[in-house]
């Protein structure tokens, strides 16, 4: 007996992601899924954003890591509500983990939730968390060949941060090529070259986030 099924294998995750999306929408929260390789600077960028935006936008962070609460402690030190998810070996966050994390956040008091995914340039792209946008960080020490090697992550992102530009003269990174390769995969990609550690070049990204948060709040 042969049965044609055509059933989406990731459906279970997508149903929970849809429920998360509705939670964000009802609360008027802009949720961003921040992805990158390990060490590209996700947590450092979040520290910088907490400093710059924390007093103006009511933000929270959900930290995904395989182990330890080191990252959430760094963010919490900036006075931002933070929930740590430890995936215990899992290489990406799934919607159910985020749903549980949302239980411990004061949703009615928030405008922005940034979800820091597990450092990985492969599978986080496949698992929706219910976010409005996905964003990607590529650091110059990783090399400018990454857009071509990991197209799915670039294709599904709304913006790309090119981090550690203060190291450009010490890394063999072709900024022009990285930008044009990333745009050939996703023409609508907004690109922000910056240095999170030096707090340089953050303004355009902060404006971008501010606009997103305002447009969601306007719909409340």
């Amino acid at each position, binding site marked *: 007996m042969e049965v044609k*099924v*055509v059933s989406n294998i*990731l459906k*279970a995750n997508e149903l929970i992601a849809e429920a998360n999306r509705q939670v964000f929408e009802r609360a008027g929260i802009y949720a961003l899924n921040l992805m990158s390789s390990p060490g590209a600077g996700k947590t450092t960028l979040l520290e910088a954003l907490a400093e710059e935006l924390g007093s103006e936008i009511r933000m929270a962070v959900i930290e995904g890591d395989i182990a330890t609460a080191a990252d959430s402690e760094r963010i919490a030190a900036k006075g931002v509500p933070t929930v740590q998810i430890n995936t215990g070996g899992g290489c990406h966050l799934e919607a159910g983990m985020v749903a549980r994390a949302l239980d411990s956040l004061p949703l009615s008091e928030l405008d922005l939730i940034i979800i820091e995914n597990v450092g990985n340039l492969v*599978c986080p792209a*496949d698992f929706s968390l219910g976010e409005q946008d996905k964003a990607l960080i590529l650091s110059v020490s990783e090399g400018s060949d990454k857009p071509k090697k990991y197209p799915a992550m670039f294709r599904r992102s709304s913006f790309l941060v090119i981090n550690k530009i203060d190291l450009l003269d010490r890394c063999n990174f072709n900024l022009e090529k990285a930008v044009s390769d990333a745009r050939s995969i996703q023409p609508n990609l907004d690109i922000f070259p910056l240095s999170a550690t030096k707090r340089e070049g953050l303004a355009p990204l902060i404006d971008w986030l501010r606009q997103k948060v305002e447009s969601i709040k306007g719909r409340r």
Partner: protein
Amino acid sequence: MHELSIAMSLLEIIERTARANGMSRVTKVLVKAGELTSVEPESLSFCFNEIKKESIAASAELLVEVVPLQGCCPVCGSDFDIKDSKLFCSMCGNRDIRIIAGEELCLFQVEGES
């Protein structure tokens, strides 16, 4: 190792399908995995063969067909194959294309005995 969680979701759908169709044993399963998904067929088979042992699909063979990327151009209307991550229209050069195949991850067919 995300293939393990994918294999578990897959087995769940297979068990549901088999029960709904009165199968006593699943013999073959066909999965279509788009080129732009992060599924590695060998890892998925490895995980599936580990977790299927106690199930209705214990002796099932898993076939994973990788679906190549295909695009469609909203400007000139042509369909084309996407090679080497060149996500633009190969006919008119338009860069804002739609992906019509290669992003899916689905269970396509279940074969079994009643």
